[in-house]
């Protein structure tokens, strides 16, 4: 189908974009369009105004200091997957990117769009949670910062308030290792379940810290703190990873849909955690089933 009629504006500054959003209550932001355009074409959305943010240069900026990587909301998937400095600073970004859709979608889709859209099976929200990212939001009430965990609130639901714009995502430069695994019907499809993990090893070779995130297993990406706790202070090994993985799957209540049953997701979730941890810790034998 075709998109319903709407009026279109292409501001060149954040201030102009915010003014447009304030002036038109049901306006929608258009970033890469790779989720919004399908919704318009399927007539699932019918905003009266589209505010195209692609002309706002500062939203495409990437900056890197020794401690922080800052990605403008409009940085496209493709750039994240091909810019060695980005993956060097936050390896999870580079690991997850090839799993997102296909080349022609990655050349338009943006990290800010993916986060704002908040599909529970999307990679970026999970990566942001595992990498301890903070969202930089601009709105009528001024700028505010929201950590990833408080940003993704449910299926297609975020902490963004009406009239607000996600401007950038700030990541601490990773000090440890990272792993990522997902299972999808076909490569490039949304994941049925996936895991994104980070692990910091201490000088004694034990896990000093870990973050274990599952996505596609709930209405939003979720940290699995029991698994993180299990890893802390321990020397990595296949048995430890198996235990952490089953703790990560405990109490899960995943959705059932066309792509996978809840039971399948519950079954596969710990496998994804185990594989992501095994990759992060370079323990290929721990990838294999017990």
């Amino acid at each position, binding site marked *: *189908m*075709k*998109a*319903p*009629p*709407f*009026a*279109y*504006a*292409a*501001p060149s500054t954040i201030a*102009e974009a915010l003014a*447009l959003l304030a002036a*038109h209550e049901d*306006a929608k932001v*258009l970033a890469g*369009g*790779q989720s919004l*355009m*399908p919704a*318009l*074409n*399927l007539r699932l959305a019918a905003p009266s*105004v*589209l*505010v*195209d943010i*692609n002309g706002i240069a500062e939203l495409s900026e990437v900056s890197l200091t020794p401690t922080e990587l800052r990605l403008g909301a409009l940085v496209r998937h*493709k750039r994240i997957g091909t810019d060695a400095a980005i993956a060097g600073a936050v390896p999870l970004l580079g690991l997850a990117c090839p799993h997102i*859709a*296909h*080349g*022609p*979608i990655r*050349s*338009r889709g943006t990290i800010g769009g993916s986060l704002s859209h908040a599909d529970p099976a999307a990679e970026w929200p999970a990566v942001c949670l595992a990498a301890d990212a903070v969202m930089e939001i601009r709105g009528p009430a001024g700028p505010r910062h929201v950590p990833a965990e408080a940003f993704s609130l449910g299926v297609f639901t975020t902490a963004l308030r009406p009239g607000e714009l996600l401007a950038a995502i700030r990541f601490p430069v990773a000090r440890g290792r990272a792993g990522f695994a997902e299972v999808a019907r*076909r*490569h*490039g499809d949304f994941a049925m379940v996936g895991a994104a993990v980070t692990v910091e090893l201490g000088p004694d070779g034990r896990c000093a810290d870990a973050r274990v995130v599952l996505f596609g297993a709930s209405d939003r990406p979720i940290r699995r703190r029991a698994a993180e706790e299990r890893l802390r202070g321990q020397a990595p090994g296949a048995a430890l990873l198996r235990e952490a993985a089953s703790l990560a799957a405990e109490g899960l209540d995943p959705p059932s849909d066309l792509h996978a049953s809840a039971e399948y997701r519950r079954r596969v979730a710990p496998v994804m955690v185990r594989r992501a941890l095994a990759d992060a810790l370079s323990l290929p034998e721990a990838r294999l089933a017990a």
Partner: protein
Amino acid sequence: MSPAETLTVALTVNGEAVTRDIPARLSLADFLREELRLTGTHLGCEHGVCGACTVLLDGEPVRGCLMLAVQARGRAVTTVEGLAATDGTLTPLQAAFQKHHALQCGFCTPGMLMTATALLAETPHPTADEVRDAISGNICRCTGYVQIVEAVLDAAGTAP
């Protein structure tokens, strides 16, 4: 700046400058097909899944159905009609598609050609895996993909 339902767009399509007044909601694919009568760009799903509408935007492959025509202002768009020379000489990739029978009904072919053209521009000598990955977002109901992969590899001079 106030939002408008009709806008003037000026862009380059297959090397030619074009200017039109169009509704904001018009997709790039519909603009090419209906305003410019370049019907080589096909529309299968109109939600990004089939890849038939893939065109090049400043050399990068994009979904024509997931972009507004107004967003292509000032940009250079290349469609399947822009591949062959004006005298009809096929590009090596097109010739390889013909040689390897990489099409049957032809519905997916424009999208396949544009996607593979972009791949070869970025990666002149791809492996078979890289070719499969590149066309993973293009659905073909007829060929089973094998001949398409062979054609791309042949055009790249990487024998299958």
